[in-house]
């Protein structure tokens, strides 16, 4: 039971990192990223492949963040010229393009078979303790990220970013150049997703292209929408709600007879869909967000 709770905790925290990254991009700066899973995948594969080549984990984690951040650069630059709806579809297309490339380029990624036998983080501590160490590390990393986000939102730079989201034209009239900040925030959010990917790869130790479908992106969106966009509280609370739902549905499967895992996958998809519709309709400010005037 402890092992189970621990593994849920780890997955929640990984999703929390992704949600915090999206909160920077969308909650703060109104950059609509429908391709989070691409940066998650890039991080997971970068760190996974490097560690298999014998690169120590701290370095491969760093590489995962850098590669994911750099992969966001062209999209970030493109985002400067696009309206939000175009950016949404472009990022969605980007994530599918990345997934297909990972699936096809077998020489690098081993294709659909995926990468088995990735080194487990903190493996030297033994099987039970390594998860505890991973959990504690993730708590620290998430706390630092959340604290950093809070500091950022309250700093002059944060006000600037918020202003980008609210009224970019007015900002430019004041002589500020929002472009640089937008690209930077986009890359930062992507780097966070990349780090999440590295944690994921070295927690479950086996990655395949099929784990990086667009549904992951919309889990993160669902967290942020449920929690309330623009606040750290909302990002964390929303992720917790998401996990209760994802894991709860696993228990529901055991309790209701005759429901297969395939059925449950459809039900989860249905709930994500319904949640996105109902929250945009009835509670756009989220569960924990402030009601906007």
């Amino acid at each position, binding site marked *: 039971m402890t092992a189970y709770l621990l593994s849920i905790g780890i997955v929640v925290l990984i999703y929390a990192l992704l949600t915090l990254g999206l909160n920077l991009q*969308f909650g703060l700066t109104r950059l*609509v990223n*429908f391709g989070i899973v691409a940066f998650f995948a890039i991080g997971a594969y970068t760190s996974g492949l490097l560690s298999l080549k014998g690169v120590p984990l701290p370095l491969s984690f760093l590489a995962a963040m850098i590669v994911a951040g750099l992969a966001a650069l062209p999209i970030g630059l*493109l985002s400067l*010229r*696009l*309206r*939000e*709806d*175009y950016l*949404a*579809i*472009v990022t*969605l*297309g*980007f994530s*599918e*393009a990345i997934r*297909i*490339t990972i*699936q*096809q380029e077998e020489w690098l990624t081993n294709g659909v078979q995926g990468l088995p036998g990735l080194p487990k983080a903190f493996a030297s501590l033994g099987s039970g303790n390594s998860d505890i160490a991973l959990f504690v590390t993730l708590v620290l990393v998430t706390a630092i990220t959340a604290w950093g986000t809070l500091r950022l939102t309250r700093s002059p730079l944060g006000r600037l970013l918020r202003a980008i989201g609210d009224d970019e034209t007015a900002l430019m009239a004041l002589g500020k150049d929002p472009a640089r900040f937008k690209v930077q925030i986009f890359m930062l959010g992507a780097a966070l997703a990349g780090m999440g990917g590295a944690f994921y790869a070295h927690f479950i130790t086996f990655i395949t292209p099929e784990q990086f479908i667009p*549904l992951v992106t*919309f889990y993160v*969106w669902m967290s942020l*929408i449920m929690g309330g966009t623009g606040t750290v509280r909302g990002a964390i609370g929303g992720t917790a709600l998401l996990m209760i739902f994802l894991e709860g549905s696993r228990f529901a499967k055991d309790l209701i007879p005759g429901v297969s895992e*395939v*059925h449950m*996958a*459809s*039900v*989860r*998809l*249905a709930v*994500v*869909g*319904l*949640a*996105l*519709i109902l929250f*945009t*309709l009835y509670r*756009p400010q989220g569960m924990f967000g402030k009601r906007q005037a």
Partner: protein
Amino acid sequence: MTEFLNLLINGVIEGLVVALPALAMTLVMGVNRFPNAATGDFMTAGAYATIGLQLAGVPSLVLAALIGALAIAATSAASYFLIFRKLARQPMVASLLAAIGLGFLIRSLISLFAGHDQRTFQLPLMRAWNFNGVRILPTDLAIAGVALACLAVVFILLYKTSFGRQLRAVADSPDLARASGIRARGLLISLWLLVGALSSVGGVLLGMKAVVMPDLGWEHLIPAFAAMVLGGIGSPVGAVVGAVLLCVAQELSVPFLGASYKLVLAFGVLAIALLIRPAGLFGRIELVR
């Protein structure tokens, strides 16, 4: 050379089919101002409805597809009435997220009741005509014919009827249209009926060309969007031309990149089109709101 011709023919036929959802998206984009990401799943729903009707004993594919199109048209109009109408005053992202959610909901209901297995339509098997290596399937000709007929109907509706005139007026300026006494409500319901039927027929035609599975339409969302952007958002002619150009490019890329990279190519075309000519081939420069 014959191989090239075969790919070209295939690309044109697929392009005419993808033109239907691209047109559906561009109509919603022009009037409701958001990319309807559920378009692909309306297609899938249409294909499954038609298969279901065939299994239930509807003897002709045409009849089944027609009833299916009516059902999806009703679903589409209901989705507008229940969801998107209420989000009109919200930021565009709200409608887009809701559309993605609706797509997920439709797809999950399909996979829940019909499973993930690939299905095919009950079609008479026909041998391809062979002109010195250039192969043409009679089914493909029928598919292209139906697609062209649907496009013709939509263009007549758009440019020769008062429905189309009013619709274009609302697309240009909702306020001005209201001031001139155009009642937007019935007009928009009709638009969404049309959009649903168009997507549904597109899904059936795509399913006839390949197989029907729950991801059928979702996999054509990016190509349909790329076609719409390539042609110029809000330009119906552009959507059709964009779809044909994109699908021909996709088919011609197969010998070099392999079939799996078709979607990646569509994404590439989309990104390049946005960079070089954001207003599309047939678009005009829009004022940023």
